[in-house]
């Protein structure tokens, strides 16, 4: 009741202030009249009575002001006034305002973008109940220390022995060809073990999970669809559950559709999920992604401890487990392993931009504050308290940062688009980014903090005015006070130091990218087109059928105009497929540790090396004589020779994948980077496709631009088999570009930010120099009149600037040396402490900064002594 009354009063005071004021005046007027009347009754004449009444009542304005204070809303009304005043001040100097707003926009925009991305990735990329209890499980090759996929048999033993996981599941990459919906299409999906969806705890949008009967091998063919696939390919038909779709020639019954936001971090996008085939590969096999949900209350370290113990027991029990351990990491950590360091660098760059922007605007405000000291002194003389003055100046800077934030949102939007384009597709970053309440809160907090950060110091300085001096002085003292200059210098040094750090980062990333692009991939990337085309085993039942198809396709493709050579293989560089085997060399003892005898295995047609552009180093390539029934032969690369036959002539030696066919090595080819442009070449063991007909890719070398043959290639394939899907159609250059997209984007981003901070800090330095020169005009004029030469003066100014630059650059160099570690995992071919970059960045910055100071230095030297001194 009382609160209601109080609230009504406050609202009335706030919004009907004029009415309340006039009532108050009326009330006091009434009081005054009564007093006057009483005085007249006591015998005074009218004039004296009125004066006496006034005297008795006291200052009307003061009473009214005291009453207004009682209303407790002065804070609001004063703020309104401050904002109006600040707005007028900002409009009065549009140059300063737009400069400050643009500067702050960069800082706020970059930070907003980083926050949005981080929030999206950390909070929304694991849309499951209690995502913190989800973990990824890897097999670890103890000697190499590398995390690898897990095997089914290992998984079973872990599942039986552990007590820390509530549920465990494993997945495998899967691809099928969809037919019956327009052109045949290659789909990417995931095979999942039992318990996968139960582990994640996500129900389908419609339909249901697989029953355990459906997941028994050979019982039933069932599939769950992704929301995207359901909408894209099935037109979001509501009656899809229970119907069948044809995948790679076999009908699969749809049991459900997953929700739109369902996602699982498998490092690829999934159109569907289906039960995995259980095949006993033994303990040697490592090809599945392992995942688990921890029991409530079990920490990840405890799980790791128990799993390590189990792995040690298994090492003793099974020979194939020898040398293998287990790694358990939370799913969130696994995600951050992939994208965390790029995000961290982005965040560091954004923070530096924000700090330099704040520093820059603060120095602008500081310089302005010194110029405004007279105005502020007048305000204080008229009764404004220190707090009131600080508040007024802070309102100005917060208003500035607010305007900056509005402009910054546009920049943030653009940066986020850029990041979505550069992030790996499986992160589905675009779908994660959204405007959340916490984002809005962050934006508001950031804006206020920026305003206070830029404005507080200048405001406190300004309010510490010495009234007498400031009022007496005509606005320009003989020398700028030492304290004022020192604050400005400190800001400039800080800005330069931060700019050096960012410039060093940019230098390191640029050098790293240059190394990546310059790296010898081992094959020619121009005029090379590859696409994926696998022959469904339902219709191409045996090796012969597959070879026959190729024998029909190959001559047709080769006879196209502009075609140089045509090849097929089970994989192409940067194509995303990979298979590896442990190797045995004839006449050598079998390796004690099979995992250490790994080599990539491949099957290729005879023109493959010519088509891809991998040079032959010794022996011969495959030829028409290497038929299915001829002697089994192989070609290895130089890395293979170095690993398995060091210092020997590999030709005519025999080797085989563990348990496979012995093959005679007939040729040696050059090394090539197969999986990643930044990865060094690994051992490779090639068999002729005729002897291992496992066709996945077609590669075409052309004499004309690749795009011009594509239409005819598609037509030929459609003519031979209309149900055959081709996918991943890319030129090799596109594959390389795609593989280097992340380092490119990061380099571009950090370099852009670095140039921005370079600009801001040198501009800030030049501004401060110009300001001090203009403040010292009379001092300089006096010096010149007393005989100092103009070049002396200019040199003194440059020397002054040089000192600041040197200090800033030195601090920055130390900072980059210390902070370089952040970049380590993102650098290729460059150490974070690369001497060239560490030295070049400060020097480059110093050069630009000195150039920027030439103009103020020149102005200092050309001060007109007589004119200046006459002003006195």
């Amino acid at each position: 009741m009382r609160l209601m009354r109080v609230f009504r009063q406050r609202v009335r005071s706030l919004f009907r202030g004029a009415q309340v004021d006039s009532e108050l005046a009326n009330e006091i007027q009434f009081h005054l009249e009564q007093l006057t009347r009483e005085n007249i009754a006591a015998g005074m004449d009218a004039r004296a009575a009125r004066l006496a009444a006034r005297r008795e009542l006291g200052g009307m304005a003061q009473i009214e002001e005291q009453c207004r204070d009682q209303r407790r809303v002065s804070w609001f009304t004063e703020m309104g006034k401050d904002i109006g005043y600040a707005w007028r001040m900002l409009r009065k100097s549009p140059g300063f305002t737009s400069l400050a707003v643009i500067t702050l926009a960069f800082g706020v925009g970059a930070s907003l973008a980083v926050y949005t991305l981080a929030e999206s990735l950390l909070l929304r990329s694991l849309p499951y109940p209690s995502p913190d209890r989800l973990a990824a499980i890897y097999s670890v090759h103890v000697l190499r220390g590398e995390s690898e996929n897990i095997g089914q048999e290992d998984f079973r033993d872990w599942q039986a022995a552990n007590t820390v996981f509530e549920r465990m599941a494993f997945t495998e990459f899967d691809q099928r060809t969809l037919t019956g919906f327009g052109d045949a299409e290659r789909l990417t999906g995931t095979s999942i073990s039992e318990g996968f969806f139960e582990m994640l705890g996500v129900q389908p949008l419609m339909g249901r999970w697989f029953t355990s009967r459906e997941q028994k091998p050979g019982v039933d063919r069932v599939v769950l669809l992704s929301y995207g696939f359901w909408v894209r390919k099935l037109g979001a038909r509501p009656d899809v559950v229970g119907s069948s779709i044809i995948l790679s020639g076999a009908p699969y019954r749809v049991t459900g559709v997953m929700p739109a936001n369902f996602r699982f971090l498998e490092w690829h996008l999934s159109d569907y999920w289906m039960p995995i085939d259980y095949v006993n590969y033994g303990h040697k096999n490592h090809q599945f992604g392992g995942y688990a949900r921890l029991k409530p209350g079990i920490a990840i370290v405890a799980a790791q401890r128990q799993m390590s113990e189990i792995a040690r027991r298994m090492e003793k029990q099974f020979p194939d487990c020898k040398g293998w351990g287990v790694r358990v990491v939370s799913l969130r950590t696994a995600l951050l392993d992939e994208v965390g360091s790029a995000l961290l660098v982005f965040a560091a760059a954004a923070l530096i931009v924000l700090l330099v922007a704040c520093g820059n605007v603060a120095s602008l405000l500081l310089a302005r504050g010194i110029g405004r000291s007279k105005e502020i002194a007048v305000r204080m003389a008229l009764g404004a308290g220190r707090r009131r003055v600080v508040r007024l100046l802070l309102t100005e800077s917060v208003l500035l940062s607010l305007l900056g934030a509005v402009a910054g949102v546009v920049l943030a939007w653009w940066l986020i688009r850029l990041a979505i384009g550069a992030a790996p597709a499986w992160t589905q970053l675009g779908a994660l980014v959204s405007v959340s309440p916490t984002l809005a809160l962050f934006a508001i907090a950031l804006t206020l903090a920026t305003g206070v950060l830029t404005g507080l110091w200048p405001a406190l300085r300004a309010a510490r005015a010495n009234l007498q001096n400031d009022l007496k002085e005509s606005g320009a003292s003989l020398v700028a006070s030492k304290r004022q200059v020192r604050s400005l210098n400190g800001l400039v040094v800080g800005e330069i130091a931060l700019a050096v750090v960012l410039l060093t980062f940019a230098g390191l990333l640029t050098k790293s990218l240059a190394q990546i692009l310059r790296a010898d991939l081992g094959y020619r990337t121009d005029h090379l087109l590859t696409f994926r085309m696998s022959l469904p085993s339902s219709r191409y039942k045996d090796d012969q059928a597959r070879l026959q198809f190729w024998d029909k396709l190959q001559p047709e493709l080769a006879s196209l105009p502009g075609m140089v050579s045509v090849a097929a293989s089970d994989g192409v560089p940067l194509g995303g497929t990979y298979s590896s085997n442990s190797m045995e060399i004839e006449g050598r003892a079998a390796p004690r540790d099979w995992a250490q005898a790994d080599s990539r295995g491949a099957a290729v047609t005879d023109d493959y090396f010519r088509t891809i552009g991998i040079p032959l180093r010794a022996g011969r390539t495959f030829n028409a004589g290497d038929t299915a029934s001829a002697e089994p032969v192989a070609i290895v690369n130089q890395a293979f020779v170095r690993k398995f036959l060091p210092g020997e002539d590999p030709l005519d030696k025999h080797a085989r994948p563990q348990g496979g066919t012995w093959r005679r090595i007939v040729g040696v080819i050059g090394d090539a980077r197969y999986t990643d442009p930044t990865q060094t070449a690994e051992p490779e063991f090639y068999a002729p496709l005729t002897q291992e007909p496992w066709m996945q890719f077609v590669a075409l070398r052309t004499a004309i631009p690749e795009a011009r043959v594509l239409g005819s290639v598609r037509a030929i394939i459609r003519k031979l088999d209309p149900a055959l899907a081709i996918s991943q159609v890319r030129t090799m250059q596109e594959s390389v570009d795609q593989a280097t997209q992340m380092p490119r984007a990061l380099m571009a981003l950090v370099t852009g930010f670095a140039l921005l901070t370079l600009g801001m800090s040198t501009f800030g330095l030049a501004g401060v120099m110009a300001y001090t020169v203009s403040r010292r005009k009379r001092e300089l004029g006096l010096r010149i009149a007393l005989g100092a030469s103009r070049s002396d003066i200019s040199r003194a100014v440059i020397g002054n600037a040089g000192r600041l630059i040197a200090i800033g650059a030195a601090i920055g160099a130390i900072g980059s040396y210390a902070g370089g570690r952040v970049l380590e995992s993102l650098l290729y071919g460059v150490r974070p402490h690369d001497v060239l970059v560490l030295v070049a960045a400060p020097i480059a910055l110093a050069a630009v900064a000195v150039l920027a100071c030439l103009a103020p230095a020149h102005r200092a030297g050309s001060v007109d002594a007589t004119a200046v001194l006459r002003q006195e």
Partner: protein
Amino acid sequence: MPKPSDLLQGTLDLLILKAINHEPLHGWGIAKRIQVLSDEVLSVQQGSLYPALHRLEQQGWVTAEWKDSELGRQAKFYALTREGRRQLERELASWSRLSTAVEQVLERA
């Protein structure tokens, strides 16, 4: 006439609440009433009366209404609210505690 003594800090609120306990009064009337009831000993500082009234109104102890005064002119009349009456009782209690204590000190010292 001896100079009216200044009001003890904080007692002004109590006197105002007490003055309008029986009937609503305007500011001038409140000042007069306090002066008369105290036999001209207490004189409200005119300057502090209105801020005090304003405060009491803001706190919801009193409510104000514009009415015709006995002098034929519109004046702002203040009346106690229910919460104001309770506040008056609280202030009276604390005042009597204070004055008893002061008296005791004066008697026993």
